[in-house]
């Protein structure tokens, strides 16, 4: 199970610029650290984060191992119309997590 925390306003006025904050539980293992047995722990990171507004992509981030454990991202979006904000994380080892939040504009 993946733990995701999203903070976005539930309502907004048309044209208002709203902040969206997203936090996901993930080890973001860099692939540069030796483990207790002395061997390098294989890389396991989230590579892409994509945000959509009613299906239209509004923001995207390509991450490197330098992003901290449990990646946090905050960004802004213009509230155009009511609907859902979709957030999607993909990464190593076939990692895929999705979350949706509803927003009412009016």
């Amino acid at each position, binding site marked *: 199970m993946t733990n995701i925390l999203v903070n976005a306003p539930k309502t907004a006025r048309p044209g208002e610029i709203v902040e969206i904050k997203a936090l996901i539980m993930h080890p*973001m293992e860099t692939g540069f650290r030796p483990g207790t047995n002395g061997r390098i722990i294989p890389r396991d990171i989230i590579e892409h984060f994509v945000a959509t507004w009613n299906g239209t992509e509004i923001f995207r981030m390509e991450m490197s*191992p*330098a*992003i*901290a454990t449990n990646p946090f991202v905050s960004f*802004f*979006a213009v509230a155009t119309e009511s609907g859902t904000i979709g957030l999607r994380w993909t990464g190593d080892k076939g990692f895929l997590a999705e979350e949706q939040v509803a927003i009412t504009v009016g």
Partner: protein
Amino acid sequence: MRSPLDRRTFVVGAALVSVLPFASAHATPEAMAAAIKEVVGEGMLREGRVKLDLPPLVENGNVVPLTVSVESPMTAADHVKAIHVFNEKNPQPHVFSARLGSRNGKAVIGTRIKLADSQKIIAIAETSSGAFWSASADVIVTLAACIEDVT
């Protein structure tokens, strides 16, 4: 019987072999410049318009809050297309690249990063007109990230 020269060569060689893996396991200012070149290409990189916020003194390099804000009207005709962040001394120079557009309203993004050492961080904004603006910040890290597994 070995000659003294052979022994000296061996010692120097052994020293190099033991040092080289560490030298190559970290990004360098040159590696950062090369990574930046890949983004900017032949374009001109100018300082300004970008604000890079992160604490000047970091106690824990595992979690360093960072905010990049760019002055831009963020309209369809004139907006920030991408924001890239690079570092000098982590194992890799690239930190993240964010793609944005007029739908964002504000060219402000925040995240948390790892820093392996005290170093310089640079943020680059690419505008829709193809211009590149940048800001850099020096950070002192007391506890470095990605040294060993703590579990």
